[in-house]
């Protein structure tokens, strides 16, 4: 995969991120997300650029870039598929999904599948830790969007749809964008997809639906004074 050079526009945006914070170095995590968005991975050039803007050493930036798992030294696919194999998802079928995808894509953990003749997009595969969607287990993430309640078959169908370039929607979110586009959102530059997808998925609403059926609510506020009127209130 060729790496595009950092454009002046990106350098300006890196400066813009640093300026959001009282101390510029606070911008480093989102800045590294932007480097990934611009170049497809953490590059030596991107590290040098962050270091120069923040007036710290490249070694310090490197130390941060190697600590966090979302930063990639090598390229990932247009669609980075993460299968949760933490205990609950693993038990519910995450292990089987991960094995099936490795087998189907003929790759190991954290690798990019070969782009076959006719594939318009690439996919990569990684096993991930708990992604806070346990009520939808087993969970697969694609470019950090939720694909809830997966099976080995549904996961294979999904990666094939992605490779073919078909539009795929998150089960609880928007149309999937590419990994590099998603990294730009993480850097703090919204992409206009916020209003896609539902308010909540079915499992999120499980308790609320029962409350609605049975007429259960929080207590009426009227029963207690709006604010505890303290003597100190003049």
């Amino acid at each position, binding site marked *: 995969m060729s790496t595009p050079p950092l454009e002046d526009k990106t350098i300006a945006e890196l400066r813009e991120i640093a300026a959001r914070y009282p101390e510029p170095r606070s911008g480093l995590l989102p800045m590294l997300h932007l480097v990934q968005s611009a170049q497809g991975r953490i590059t030596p050039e991107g590290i040098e650029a962050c270091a120069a803007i923040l007036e710290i050493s490249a070694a310090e930036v490197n130390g941060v870039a190697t600590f966090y798992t979302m930063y990639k030294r090598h390229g990932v696919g247009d669609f980075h598929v993460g299968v949760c194999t933490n*205990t609950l998802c693993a*038990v519910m079928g995450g292990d089987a999904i991960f094995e099936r995808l490795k087998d189907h894509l003929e790759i190991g953990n954290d690798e990019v599948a070969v782009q076959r003749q006719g594939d318009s997009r690439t996919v990569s595969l990684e096993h991930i830790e708990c992604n806070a969607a346990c009520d939808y287990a087993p969970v697969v993430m694609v470019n950090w969007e939720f694909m809830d309640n997966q099976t080995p078959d549904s996961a294979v169908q999904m990666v094939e749809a992605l490779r073919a370039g078909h539009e795929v929607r998150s089960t609880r979110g928007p149309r999937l964008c590419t990994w590099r586009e998603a990294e730009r959102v993480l850097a703090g530059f919204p992409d206009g997809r916020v209003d896609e997808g539902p308010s909540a998925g079915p499992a999120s609403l499980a308790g609320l639906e029962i*409350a609605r059926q049975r007429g259960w609510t929080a*207590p009426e506020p009227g029963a207690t004074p709006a604010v505890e009127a303290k003597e100190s*209130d003049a």
Partner: protein
Amino acid sequence: MSDVLTPVLTDIWDAEQSWKLATYAARGGYDALDVAFAMSPDDVITAVKDSGLRGRGGAGFPTGMKWSFIPQDNPKPKYLVVNADESEPGTCKDIPLMMGNPHVLVEGVILSSYAIRANKAFIYIRGEVVHVIRRVQAAVAEAYAAGHLGTGLNGKGIHDSGYNLDIVVHAGAGAYICGEETALLEGLEGRRGQPRLRPPFPAVAGLYASPTVINNVESIASVPAIVKNGAAWFGSMGTEKSKGHGIFSLSGHVQKPGQYEAPLGITLRELLDLAGGVREGHQLKFWTPGGSSTPLLTAEHLDVPLDFEGVGAAGSMLGTRALQIFDETVCVVRAVLRWTEFYKHESCGKCTPCREGTWWLVQALTRLENGQGSEADLDQLLDQCDNILGRSFCALGDGATSPVSSSVQHFREEYLAHLAHGGCPFDPARSTAWSGTEVSA
């Protein structure tokens, strides 16, 4: 006596476009700001103290008391940081909350920042949830446009109160340890997420060595209703020392996994009743009350009140109310090994007991899961736990020992069965979500 379920934070989740300001405002959203601005900041702190709200991130520290530790005579700026790094295995409440109701968090941030006299607040969201980050980014932008943030619509402060606040939404980059509050601050300062020595506590020297309050998403989101409805209203839910509502997250082998917002003190038996019970034809084997760092409980604990005191008395911790349910098809050794691999992977490497200890735990558990070794290895496993628990720099190491020691306590026989069997006696295919369908096919 309140109802069995008490939707407050989740109440708007079934509304059309519940994440939009218009939807939130139509239900009285941002009304609490004017109530608070008519009060002194100290009185807002007092109201939150009086409500009995305790931290919803797991530790249960009284929120109002935490705020009162901010030294107001310190001339440095004060900061509020929201810990939205939800990563504890099993925990899945803050993510749907921010997806479906981001404005209640933003309103809570404004009220809380006003109380501690902060003019800058940060929402640190784990990076692996892009759509949630979109929703919070948009909610903050809408709040600015409506005059609920910044310097207000007339430049005279929010709602012309003279009080100004800026919020920065910050995406993390993949590190469970950043849920630890001082490691989170390191991440927010652009460094490796390794915990800091305490004292000084963040209230004295936190972000940029300035007084800083760090609160969980659900804690902050609980503040608007407390300010609007009063401390007594909040305290009318829950138990004597664990007041108010909380989101309980049921996952795993239950008929209807999901989010159930109830008064603290509800039991797993009651929650399972609502959720249709354990999956058909199976029995409860073990569960976590609040994520993988809270010691495992079993069917004998079905009637433990799920509040801070009740779960503590049962030998575990309420934690994040992440109720992961495992039935009899699940091998407890496999489950614990997998959690231990997680802790080993996420150990930040700063302190030896955790960095080395979690590595050794994985070695020992792998052997046991494969049926290798002897009963003496079980004692060695517990010895290793003793050398980590209480000797680690932060709670990650302590938490890593919880599933190990509690599983040996409750399921020693099952570990021994692995040795007798010369391997794992369980078929993992039977635990999957689709196992029933395949067997009958």
